[in-house]
């Protein structure tokens, strides 16, 4: 038995919004792999829950009318990894979420929950930042879209307005972001399964037609600060430069001007800085290879 004061089950998105307005104190629950654990730990004990588990309309991956890759918020990690559209356009996202927890957790956990937690270590978060994903939020006044960078307000807090009855309904990756772009993710953790990232690094690259120049490189980290973050100085250094190992080396070093990791029981700041530099380089080298470039 879980220590909850009430359970409200939404039957549709409209219903979820109405329930949220009626019970502003209630916690939304999707896959349950975080909320129920926190309830057991006592952190959310005694709370009321609004379950959106049955909103099957929020599951699945598609390409919408604007050619955005659209990922329904309740799509499980397993289904993201196995989805042919994800594999074709943003394979690295499928690879990143295939490192969450273990198989059963990946069947239950959702990408919406992974982002709405506002946790810096979420395996999807750095990749979604690096691909400039857009969060679709539905509330009583309709739909609004927020760049993922702005969606994260601070550790554990995201831009979902309870007074508007809002829930996250999809994550979009625009064509301008995924077109001709290839990415790589490194999760550094102590164990291969059932562990949280000490540092997560996601890089993607679009090369010029002759594959000799970095046309657009983007990089984002998880656990390099209180929320997932881009490394913009490193990006502006590498963009427009020739595809060479020397430039990739300098790109890695420049990352240190962007990030601000902390000491924690998982790892020291110095160690996180070290693996940030190394992961940035390795991810970019892999991205170049996937894009058909030579080094």
């Amino acid at each position: 038995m879980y220590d909850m004061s009430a359970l409200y089950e939404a039957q549709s998105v409209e219903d979820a919004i109405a329930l949220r307005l009626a019970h502003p104190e209630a916690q939304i629950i999707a896959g349950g792999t975080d909320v129920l654990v926190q309830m057991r730990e006592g952190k959310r004990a005694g709370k009321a829950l609004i379950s959106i588990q049955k909103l099957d309309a929020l599951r699945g991956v598609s390409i919408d009318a604007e050619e955005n890759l659209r990922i329904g918020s309740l799509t499980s990690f397993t289904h993201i990894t196995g989805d042919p559209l994800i594999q074709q356009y943003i394979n690295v996202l499928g690879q990143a979420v295939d490192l969450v927890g273990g198989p059963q957790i990946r069947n239950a956990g959702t990408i919406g929950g992974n982002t709405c937690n506002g946790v810096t270590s979420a395996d999807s978060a750095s990749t979604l930042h690096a691909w400039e994903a857009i969060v679709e939020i539905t509330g009583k006044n309709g739909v609004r879209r927020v760049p993922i960078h702005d969606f994260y307000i601070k550790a554990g807090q995201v831009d979902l307005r309870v007074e508007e009855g809002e829930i996250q309904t999809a994550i979009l990756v625009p064509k301008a972001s995924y077109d001709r772009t290839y990415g790589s993710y490194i999760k550094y953790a102590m164990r291969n399964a059932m562990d949280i990232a000490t540092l997560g690094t996601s890089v993607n690259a679009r090369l010029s037609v002759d594959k000799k120049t970095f046309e657009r490189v983007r990089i984002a980290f998880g656990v390099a600060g209180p929320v997932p973050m881009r490394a913009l100085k490193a990006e502006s250094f590498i963009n427009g430069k020739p595809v060479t190992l020397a430039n990739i080396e300098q790109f890695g070093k420049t990352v240190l001007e962007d990030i601000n990791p902390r000491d924690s029981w998982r790892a020291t700041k110095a160690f996180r800085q070290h693996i940030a530099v190394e992961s940035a380089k390795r991810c970019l080298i892999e991205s170049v290879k996937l894009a058909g470039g030579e080094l």
Partner: protein
Amino acid sequence: MAKNQYQLVTCTINGKEVEQMVDVRASLTDMLRGDFRLTSVKKGCEVGECGACNVIIDGECYNSCLYLAVWAEGKHITTLEGLMGPNGELSDIQQAFVDEAAIQCGFCTPGFIMTAAEILDRGVYYSDEELRKLLSGHLCRCTGYENIFKAVKKTMLRRLGRLDDPYLNT
């Protein structure tokens, strides 16, 4: 909690359609053990880390401790009991666990076998590395992982008709 909240759940458990009134606070583990006496579903960590409560829901494995009983509405659920034949005959994967001595205390066994059942039903050949990853959602505190791996791999080879694979003689 001022007043208990109950809900009627209709689902299929091990091939049989059932109806059950459940407390909305109940996990699927609570329902399967308490209401249906399916005690192969073990209560281990109850926070989704150990995999002892693993069951198959609509073809995919879930830790039933992190799954509310009311979410079972309309679902097809299989527990270890559902793998047996009509007269209690063991399925091939259960027999393989016996043959390989992949059991010590037995607490993790039902969860492991349900994951193995999901994997093996796909009819796909997996490398050792892939199989290890697919089995990684379970903890065995007797640390009998090697024999568990063997039981799953041998059953995979047999089901795929690779009967001359030298691994079967190990």
